[in-house]
């Protein structure tokens, strides 16, 4: 990459990174898009539907993935991480660590034979550990680039010098165990950080029973459970007895607005629990959902109407109150202990399945990346932004967008991403 070309480094290949890349590419600016996972798509790819339109998430995302892959101005670096940034606005030098994929990208046609034959079963991160994948795998079915990757920590050959079955069965000889991690050096004018979030693990809230009670799951797990391409093929059943749950309870603010865990509001849970309850109802009209909330936050466009629709057309019951304790009966049905604030009476409320709307928290490696980029974090470890320059990081030429600067929904991430693209373009031109 020559010094004179206008190019921007985008870190993170979720919806924010993708939108920023596409805007810049269409603007005529070259983009280096870095994603640490084997495929771009991010969290949005894991969701079943999206509020408030209830569009199928992957269906509206997939064309953008393909567009990113095909756009002449975008270079994808998957399985890659930013290791070092030097220089300043207008002339940053980035050093990427390109992890070996052990696959010849141009040869793999994603036929899947290697997956069938691979003997190693590994917890599938994309499906939030609800099913197993193999050591050779495609990150998710519609993933881009749609080629295999080998998990070096699980592959029998790479860990124990055995197996190599994939190599034998691949007709296209696409397996390449000789590949090594490598370094990629780039020159860019601006940097956009779009590294997203991860869900909070609610295990420390012991009284809610996550991991102790089989029929208490997280929102993201539910999202995969109910997704047609998920581990249950969209047939909602509970893991304890494989029965179809009929009564669902959603608990909002799990780990959020909580000084002991995450003091902030995760912005999206009131809406997405409503969405999940709606989808459940659409799968099975005999399902009844109850959403426990502190404040019902629906300030976005059409959000309040969405909640009303949830009440009227989907029979969702909203119950004011935070739940501190969930127990179970002998049939493993969770029992929610809560106060009905309308009457101030305590209730023991048995349901079939509980869904915990867990907080969005910063990615584990955010502090490390902040260090590499030389930008500040806020007190919650999100990247620090300024109220009136919301997309600027603390360093000139580096812009932040989407959930890496605080919890937000998809439209706001997309707005942020386009906005960061505008800032990055402005910087590239002014510092050019």
């Amino acid at each position, binding site marked *: 990459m020559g010094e004179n070309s206008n190019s921007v480094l985008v870190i993170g290949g979720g*919806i924010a990174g993708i*939108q920023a890349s596409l*805007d810049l590419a*269409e*603007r*005529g600016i070259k983009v280096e898009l870095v994603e640490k996972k084997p495929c771009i798509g991010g969290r949005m790819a894991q969701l079943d539907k*999206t509020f*408030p*339109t209830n*569009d*199928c998430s992957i*269906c*509206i995302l*997939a*064309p953008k993935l*393909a*567009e990113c892959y*095909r756009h002449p101005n975008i270079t994808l670096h998957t399985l890659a991480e930013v290791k070092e940034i030097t220089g300043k606005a207008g002339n940053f030098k980035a050093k990427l660590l390109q992890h070996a994929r052990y696959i010849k990208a141009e040869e793999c*046609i*994603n*036929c899947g034979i290697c997956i069938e034959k691979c003997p190693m079963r590994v917890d599938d991160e994309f499906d939030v550990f609800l099913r197993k994948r193999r050591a050779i795998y495609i990150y998710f*079915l*519609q993933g*881009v680039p749609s080629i295999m990757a080998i998990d070096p920590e699980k592959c029998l050959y790479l860990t124990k010098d055995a197996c190599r079955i994939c190599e034998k069965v691949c007709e296209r000889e696409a397996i390449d165990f000789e590949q090594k991690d490598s370094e990629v050096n780039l020159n860019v004018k601006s940097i956009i950080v779009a590294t997203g979030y991860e869900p909070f693990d609610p295990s420390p809230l012991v009284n809610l029973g996550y991991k102790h009670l089989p029929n208490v799951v997280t929102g993201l797990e539910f999202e995969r459970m109910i997704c047609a*391409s998920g581990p249950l*093929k*969209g047939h909602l059943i509970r893991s304890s007895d494989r029965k179809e749950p009929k009564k669902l309870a959603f608990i909002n603010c799990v780990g959020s607005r909580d000084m002991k865990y995450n*003091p*902030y*509001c995760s*912005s999206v849970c009131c809406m997405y629990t409503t969405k999940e309850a709606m989808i459940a109802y659409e799968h099975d009209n005999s399902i009844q959902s109850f959403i426990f909330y502190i*404040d019902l936050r629906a*300030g*976005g*466009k*059409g959000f309040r*109407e969405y909640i009303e629709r949830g009440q009227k057309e989907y029979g969702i019951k909203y119950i*004011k109150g935070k739940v501190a304790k969930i127990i179970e009966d002998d049939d493993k049905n969770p029992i929610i202990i809560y106060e009905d604030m*309308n009457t*101030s009476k305590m209730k023991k409320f048995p349901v079939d399945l509980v869904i915990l709307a867990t907080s969005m928290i910063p990615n584990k490696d955010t502090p490390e990346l902040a260090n590499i980029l030389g930008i500040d974090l806020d007190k*919650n470890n999100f990247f620090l932004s300024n*109220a*009136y*320059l*919301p997309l600027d990081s603390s360093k000139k030429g580096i812009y932040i967008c989407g959930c890496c600067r*605080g*919890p937000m929904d*998809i*439209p706001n991430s*997309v*707005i*942020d*991403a*386009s*906005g960061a*693209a*505008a800032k990055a*373009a402005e910087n590239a*031109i*002014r510092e050019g």
Partner: protein
Amino acid sequence: MEDIKMGVFICHCGTNIGGFLDVPSLVEYAKTLPNVTFATDNLYSCSEVGLSLIKEKIEEHDLNRVIVASCTPRTHEPLFRSICQEAGLNPYLFEMVNIRDQCSWVHMKETEAATEKAKILIEMGVAKALLLQPLEKFQIDINPTALIIGGGIAGMTAALNLANQEFKVILIEKEPELGGLLRYLYKLYPTHDDASKVLEVRNLVENHQKIKVITSTEPVKIEGFIGNYKVSVKRRDGIYDIDTGIIIVATGAQVLKPEGLFGYNGSTIITQLELEQLLKENKINVKNIVMIQCVGARNEERRYCSNICCMTALKNAMLIKELKPDANISIIFRDIQTQGTTYEEYYRKAREKGITFIRYIPEKVPIVKESNIEVYNDYLNQDISIPYDMIVLSTPLIANPDSEDLAKMLKVPLEENHFFLEAHVKLRPVDFATDGIYVCGSAHWPADIPEAISQAYAAASRASTIISKDVLEVEGAIAEVDEDLCVGCGICIKICPYNAISMDDNGIAHVTEASCKGCGLCGATCPEKAITNHHFTTKQILAQILASGGK
């Protein structure tokens, strides 16, 4: 006659289709249809593998018609078309059949019948594909100028960014000065910076070489199409024309005046905006202040939550506390809207300052008496009384009354509350369905200053993707008027939602190719059948109807 070789690709869409329809039998059926020389299935046609397969088969079998039976053209047609093009096929020789949204999803429990329906749908697709004609896309020149309507914080921010990207920007404002609602605010949340400090951006805008600011000006007529809009604006001294490549709508919103609500009188019972003025002038000298939230919002008339009033109330309550620490401030609310990191922290800080929060339910709204407010306390299940010296009503931002006129001029839609309606709530939040027009700030939905700023940058970015180009390629499947049949009745001009048809000097309707989206309204409406909608010709549609068993 052309030798038609058709390829049919049937998509499983994971299990979205494959889980409910008998896809292999669809493949077998497709092979029996006229001119189908190749048929196969695909796990995900839109995946890279699926796409390469299509390309490979076009070349291998020398296909000159391609059908993908899968999801919806709304999201996927452009992708499949571009694949055909890459394989050397005219993209309009591609036809898409929707066997998911309109078949497998709606008949999940009836595999057999649904599979039969899918066969018919595919047969209809084949019938149409036989009649498809290659079409050419049009190239249009782009005027690298941006016109921004509205000089509030959103409009100014967008203007500055585009100008800094070295585009020519024209910013028009109906008021005599820039600044919008920001001019009336005292301090801003969450930092308590003076609004005037943020307003300083005005100087940068006014002095930027690339920005032309025109105040006391409103648009009266908008013509043209992406890259080539002509906007007529009215000034005191007459009407002027502005040529621009794109338009950004940043016209903001206004605060509801709560006439007749909760005893609003403008003196002891006032709005938050009026309170800002008192704060500016340091004129608060009462002790017990009660704020009521959702006044005129979240009710039958205005169902929506205005998004910014809770933070405004918290801010003003805290500012009063700063000026008058012994003041007792209560906020009567329904749900406190403080999303995210800083706002939730701000809410905690407001509680820390000793502000009293009382929740009310819509069934039992607060009653304002002479010196106290009576309200049913939902948390205690009983009525309580709060003494007051002053009441502050938090009213929503409502759409500007002139939005409707502007929407008509732009031929863009408004949503039910008369805010501008974007192309797609999720993924195209600042775009309109009409190309080259964008929206940001409270014209789109009640937005606070930080939100309006982010959106302004986003709109600027979207606009830059157009005006950075010299030429743009536009849709080929458009309407065409047969001049011999047209009688110049003008019905098509009225019905066109994209402002794409005009009357020429001879009284004959004329389609502006760059604006036409090929929606088909004109063709369906023309009493003389003078309009052909390419790619959806009467012949093609009739063939489909006949193939479905119609007569």
